[in-house]
């Protein structure tokens, strides 16, 4: 396939992915908006008003970057894992496998599809948050780069999960037992400065902490970790997961007999 053909194949996968999550918008776009509205009301307004400031900002302002990032992470991941596994389950993945689309385009298409949903949700949550608080951007490039790379990283994670999954249970184990705890313990609702030294050290082993804080730095200008270290870590993880995904595709892990 020539360059134009590769581009057509890439955009075809993205369009199909976007069509899928917009077709089922009550399952994909609406729930995060409702959930985050509840978070803002309960944690931001009701409880937050009693907590006072955190990191030099109102509690509501402090948690907004974390909640946006949490939505981006979970939706990027779940879009790819559910879409790709459904294709495996229905065998419609064979449409791609018999075609001349190279593996790296398949991966790029799915990651871009996951990013499309993750970033759409991020935008929706941002708009919802504006109804509760004022947001000013401290460092726009940092905001954009961090959110795009984080979305790409968790789309890759979702892809690997879908490749390995053999039943529907397998696609909910990681989000429920790994992703959600790491996100909640990743500094979305608090600064790790509040924790004893030991637990601060433990928290530093949580990769999601770096993403949440990198994004928070971009918006508020405060962070528990060096934001450039955050970006470096995200890039390292993206490189590793990309290599794993391409190797699995080349071997046909879970998709070819």
């Amino acid at each position, binding site marked *: *396939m*020539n360059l*134009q*053909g*590769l581009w*057509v*194949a890439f*955009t*075809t*996968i993205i*369009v*199909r992915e976007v*069509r899928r999550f917009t*077709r089922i918008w009550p399952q994909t776009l609406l729930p995060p908006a409702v959930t985050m509205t509840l978070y803002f009301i309960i944690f931001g307004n009701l409880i937050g008003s009693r907590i006072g400031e955190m990191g030099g900002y109102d509690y509501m302002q402090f948690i907004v970057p974390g909640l946006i990032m949490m939505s981006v992470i979970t939706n990027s991941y779940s879009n790819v894992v559910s879409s790709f596994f*459904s*294709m495996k389950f*229905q*065998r*419609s993945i*064979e*449409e*791609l*496998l*018999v*075609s*001349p*689309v*190279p593996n790296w385009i398949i991966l790029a298409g799915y990651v871009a599809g996951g990013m499309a949903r993750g970033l759409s949700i991020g935008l929706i949550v941002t708009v919802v948050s504006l109804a509760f608080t004022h947001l000013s951007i401290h460092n726009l490039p940092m905001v954009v780069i961090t959110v795009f790379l984080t979305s790409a990283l968790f789309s890759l994670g979702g892809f690997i999960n879908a490749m390995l999954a053999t039943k529907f249970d397998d696609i909910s184990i990681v989000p429920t037992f790994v992703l959600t705890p790491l996100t909640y313990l990743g500094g979305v609702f608090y600064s790790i400065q509040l924790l004893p030294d030991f637990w601060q050290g433990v928290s530093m082993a949580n990769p999601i902490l770096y993403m949440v804080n990198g994004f928070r730095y971009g918006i508020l200008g405060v962070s528990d970790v060096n934001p450039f270290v955050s970006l470096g870590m995200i890039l390292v993880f993206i490189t590793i997961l990309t290599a794993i995904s391409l190797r699995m595709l080349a071997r*046909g892990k879970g998709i*070819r*007999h």
Partner: protein
Amino acid sequence: MTHALEIEGLTKTYSDGFRALRGINLNVREGDFFALLGPNGAGKSTTLGIVCSLVNKSDGRVSVFGHDIDTDLAGAKLNLGVVPQEFNFNQFEKVLDIVTTQAGYYGISLKKARQSAEKYLKKLGLWEKRDSPARMLSGGMKRRLMIARALVHEPRLLILDEPTAGVDIELRRSMWDFLEEMNRQGTTIILTTHYLEEAEAMCRNIAIIDHGEIIRHTSKRDLLKQLSVETFLLDTEEPLESAPSLDGFNCKLDSEGSLEVEVSKGTGLNSLFMELEKQGIKVVSMRTKANRLEELFVRMVEDNAQDAGKVGEVMA
């Protein structure tokens, strides 16, 4: 002569140790209408799965129009259209989207994809259903949708795995007509089927695969020459109470009262009718009992099973 498909020494052993293919060789000429026949589990779908890169081969060489799948997989795939045995599209997507999306995977722009999709959906009688979700289609329509999807990038080789399974007779015949038209226009077609009348009606060359080995690879004409006996069913004017004794012919009554007569190759049917005339039996209609290819197929597979049994005894 260009080969649409060349297979050399193809083997496949699955992870559970099952040897599905034991070194098969197969050539299909460009423009051919070819049938790959065999009983369930013989290795048909594995063979086609490897050609379509849905199954990883263990060893051997496969090339499609000269494009080796080990060195030029994309080139091979561009020439190939696949209609699988089971429905493998997203049931929630619209018919037109399924076909145009497939074209997109081949690098065809949306504008051209829509033109091609319209052409094949119209030919296959699905254009009116283009905005319907695939799950709303009948079984026959779903099969035709998979054919339209396989053709949208105009492949030179079309592979169909049981294309008419579960399709009613009328629709099956219209699909035969469509496939014959595609073949006349230059598309090489390979099909597997359980309906041997389908293979007999359409295919020019045939391979029979059993236990992962090609036991026969020849033209349909040569294959049918091997038939030594044909069986006819005769309906008589007056019901018969028992089978008559006809000089030179084996005959019996079937469960519905028709007279079943075996006619050896080279024996004229006139002598049969003369025998019947002598006994005062009037025939009102006549038909072949089973299609000829089916008789041969059953015999070959049975012979192969007996040979395999003998080898097993020797090895034991």
